[in-house]
């Protein structure tokens, strides 16, 4: 027997309404015959992403959450572009503006909110827009094409995102705000001040503590007048003065409303057949304007609609982030300390970092982070869990990293993971496998776990988790790593000891160094030998003889071994700029050697794949002849200097990023570093060369060059820290050389700059590179000195016969008794 399905009608095709349906379909896909009404003509999209669409970082298509086909696949009847204007609670039906009538058994109101349009004269002029829908964004984009000046009323989250977007679209933007500082609901005065400064640097203009009296214009907006009489011009005016729950429809149906539609903990309105979720609701006196709480509400509503009747919504605490690329800001909870509350503060103006934590009874109540927000989610978690932070109080401001990977946070979170949770993504190792290996094989150290399970043996990004699992499984037995770790099993010595030891002992080669430090093995292993080779090379430039036997194959032959034993070859393309002649040369060489794959690399050069080892010297010879410098393509050394086209071509370019990139590459190529080193130069803050995820990134601005350091785009993405700004290309070269030298002298072998900076702190690097001018000049000089010995072209040497034995077979045995040599 087919029971007649109940009918569910949803008013509002937005984020909360559709999320409720998604949750419902997961739990009970066949419960209802579903009809959705949406006033907007688009399918359900992610409103949050309107800001990136406005700034040009995304397209509308990228924001669509559920395409038309999703509705079809789930048998949902969708009416878009239709506004419901009546709910008849007696007949249990809804009616649309154009007369359509649909009955319901259950109704879900998810009408969101409306932007507040301040009742100022001139409000209805063309050119005055709200910021709520994709329609608004499209209008703004159109206005940005023709108009020059934009004014945004409201300096809250939305207002600033609108202002930033319009400014990136090339408009001159002013922000008018009632309060003394922007985002006063999320930030305290200091944080707000920092934000204002950063936005001013990007070209926004602020009119603070100002009230608008009238919007000016005859047939379209032309400006506005403040209460104090001052007038400013505007071709576009965006109202971002707040939102108001959209309750008119519910109100007219006699559903109890205050500021919002009042709902219970089960998301039901006073009419139990009618549910409501999203920005339109008021729950325990609160209304919300962010998605996280709406999603929690959606879960509860779905649970009750599916007749499980188990969950209750008890309100949410919210955290906010400003989505302006390059500005890091986080706020959560109550950040204005009340009587008896304590305040923890960290302010580092030089680094542009500000952190404030508000405590009550040793628990976190609120947080404002500016400039460094990595720990935001962690603070938020501590806040929501009501964790007693007494024990971490001393370090809490420095963030979770500071408690160590095996700190409490890690331990308790791995304890809660299921056995099936994948810990090591590289090798596909689950928690259960690690735990049973630890127990069955009586493992005790990280190295043992690596050896037996392969977890954390590849990229290492899960090391912290693996250590936490060890600690958890062994209980008190596992003592976390001592601060100094031996390089490998061949020695007691640690990486940190090496530079000093080499200098004190005057050791000039690996065997001497090993003897002096009482190495336990005759000639070390594949872990310590490459490290010692590196430390010696840095200590004695020009004097030390590189030991090719202590290098991995990719550095030994300057080509990378592939899974089938062939090699890849990547000639240097200075600053990513090439020419028809160079391309032709590469093409001819590739053809001649029947290169199976030619790939444009992620580093703006051309990779040739599938070269046999015997063929390498010949191919190099030809590349050298065609004018290519090379080598180091796979070394722990300078890799590439990516550039954009810059002021030579780009309409936004402020400096010659391409030319500067080439100069930087000519200076730095051939340098050996603790790990690979990548550089990029972008011609303007749009940053097309992705300079802010490089070890050394240069972002050109009108007044000079911003220098950013310590970025990493690899296993764990780390955005660079801003080091300083300089005015000339010469200074860029000097800072670059000095920074690389500091890294070479002070980091441990296999530290990328990101790891090194995380360990020593940016302030430490600044002290050497920015504050100490004389020291910087010396570092730079030492860098240039060592470059004198390392800018030889290894391919040239090998094409000329160096290490020829590397490339030829010793003998070929054709039949069992015959040898050809």
């Amino acid at each position, binding site marked *: 027997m087919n029971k007649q399905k109940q009918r569910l009608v949803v008013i509002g095709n937005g984020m909360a309404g559709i999320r409720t349906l998604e949750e419902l379909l997961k739990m009970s896909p066949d419960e209802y015959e579903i009809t959705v009404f949406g006033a907007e003509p688009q399918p359900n999209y992610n409103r949050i992403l309107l800001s990136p669409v406005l700034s040009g970082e995304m397209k509308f298509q990228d924001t669509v959450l559920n395409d038309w086909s999703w509705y079809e696949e789930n048998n949902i009847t969708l009416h878009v572009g239709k506004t419901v204007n009546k709910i008849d609670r007696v007949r249990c039906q809804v009616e649309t503006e154009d007369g359509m009538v649909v009955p319901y058994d259950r109704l879900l109101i998810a009408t969101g909110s409306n932007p507040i349009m301040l009742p100022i004269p001139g409000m209805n002029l063309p050119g005055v827009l709200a910021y709520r829908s994709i329609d608004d964004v499209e209008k703004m984009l159109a206005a940005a094409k023709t108009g020059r000046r934009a004014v945004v009323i409201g300096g809250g989250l939305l207002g600033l995102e609108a202002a930033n977007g319009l400014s990136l679209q090339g408009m001159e933007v002013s922000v008018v705000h009632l309060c003394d500082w922007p985002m006063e609901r999320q930030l305290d005065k200091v944080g707000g001040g920092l934000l204002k400064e950063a936005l001013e640097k990007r070209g926004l203009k602020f009119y603070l503590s100002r009230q608008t009296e009238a919007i000016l214009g005859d047939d379209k907006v032309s400006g506005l007048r403040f209460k104090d009489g001052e007038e400013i011009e505007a071709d576009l005016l965006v109202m971002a003065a707040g939102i108001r729950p959209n309750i008119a429809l519910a109100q007219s149906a006699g559903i109890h409303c205050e500021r919002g539609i009042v709902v219970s903990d089960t998301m039901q309105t006073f009419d139990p057949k009618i549910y409501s979720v999203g920005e339109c609701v008021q729950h325990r006196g609160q209304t919300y304007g962010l998605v996280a709480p709406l999603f929690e509400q959606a879960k509860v509503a779905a649970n009750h609609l599916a007749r499980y009747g188990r969950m209750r919504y008890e309100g949410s605490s919210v955290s906010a982030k400003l989505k302006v690329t390059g500005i890091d800001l986080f706020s959560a909870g109550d950040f204005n300390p009340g009587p008896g509350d304590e305040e923890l503060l960290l302010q580092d103006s030089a680094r542009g970092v500000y952190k404030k934590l508000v405590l009550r009874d040793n628990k976190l109540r609120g947080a404002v982070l500016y400039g460094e927000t990595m720990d935001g989610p962690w603070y938020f978690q501590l806040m929501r869990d009501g964790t007693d932070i007494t024990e971490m109080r001393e370090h809490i401001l420095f963030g979770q990293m500071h408690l160590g990977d095996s700190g409490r946070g890690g331990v308790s979170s791995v304890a809660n993971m299921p056995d099936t949770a994948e810990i090591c993504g590289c090798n596909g190792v689950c928690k259960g496998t690690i735990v049973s290996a630890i127990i069955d094989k009586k493992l005790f150290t990280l190295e043992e776990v690596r*050896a*037996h399970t392969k977890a954390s043996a590849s990229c290492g990004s899960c090391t912290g988790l693996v250590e936490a699992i060890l600690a958890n499984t062994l209980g008190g037995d596992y003592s976390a790593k001592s601060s100094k770790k031996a390089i490998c099993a061949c020695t007691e010595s640690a990486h940190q000891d090496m530079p000093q030891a080499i200098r004190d002992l005057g050791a000039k080669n690996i065997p001497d160094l090993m003897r002096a430090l009482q190495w336990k*093995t*005759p*000639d*070390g*292993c*594949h872990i310590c*030998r*490459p490290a010692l080779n590196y430390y010696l090379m840095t200590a004695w430039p020009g004097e030390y003889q590189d030991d090719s*036997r*202590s*290098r*991995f*194959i990719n550095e030994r032959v300057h080509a990378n*071994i592939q*899974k089938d*034993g062939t090699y890849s070859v990547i000639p240097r393309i200075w600053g990513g700029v090439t020419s028809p002649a160079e391309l032709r040369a590469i093409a001819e060489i590739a053809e001649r050697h029947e290169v199976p794959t030619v790939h444009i690399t992620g580093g703006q050069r051309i990779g040739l794949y599938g070269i046999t080892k015997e063929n390498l010297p010949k191919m190099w010879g030809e590349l050298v002849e065609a004018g290519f410098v090379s080598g180091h393509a796979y070394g722990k050394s300078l890799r590439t200097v990516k550039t954009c086209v810059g002021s030579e071509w780009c309409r936004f370019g402020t400096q010659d990023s391409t030319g500067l990139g080439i100069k930087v590459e000519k200076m730095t190529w051939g340098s050996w570093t603790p790990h690979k080193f990548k550089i990029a130069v972008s011609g303007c803050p749009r940053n097309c060369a992705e300079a802010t995820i490089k070890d050394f990134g240069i972002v050109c601005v009108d007044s000079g060059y911003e220098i950013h350091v310590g970025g990493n785009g690899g296993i764990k993405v780390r955005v660079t820290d801003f080091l300083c700004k300089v005015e000339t290309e010469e200074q860029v070269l000097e800072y670059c050389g000095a920074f690389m030298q500091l890294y070479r002298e002070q980091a441990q072998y296999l530290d990328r700059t990101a790891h090194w900076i995380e360990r020593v702190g940016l302030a430490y690097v600044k002290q050497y590179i920015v504050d100490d001018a004389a020291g910087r000049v010396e570092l730079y000089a030492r860098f240039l000195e060592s470059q004198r010995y390392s800018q030889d072209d290894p391919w040239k040497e090998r094409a000329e016969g160096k290490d020829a*034995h590397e490339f030829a*077979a*010793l*003998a*070929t*045995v*054709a*039949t*069992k*008794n015959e*040898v050809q*040599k």
Partner: protein
Amino acid sequence: MNWIQVGNLQDIPRQGSRVVKTATGEIALFRSVDDQVFALNNRCPHKGGQLSQGIVHGTRVTCPMHNWVIDLESGEAVAPDKGCAHRHEVRVAHGVLFLEVSDEVKGCK
């Protein structure tokens, strides 16, 4: 016995390796820091990496592909990894290298 003269000791660099090509595949000859010579199939028991391209240390070689360590005397992977690269006999007489190419599997349990 099937000893074949394949070259001289000094043709192989210390802590290095050279390859002998045979009808049935490559054999890698390794020379340790103290001038001992070993021969293994040039195929790592893990995923076939060319052992001749690895770093030689003590009487071991580290595979260039995923860092398995292979014992040169036995051809066995060092624990906890398991597997074996077949060993061949080599002799050095007056600096001349003789290799026994044999299909018989040696050095593997």
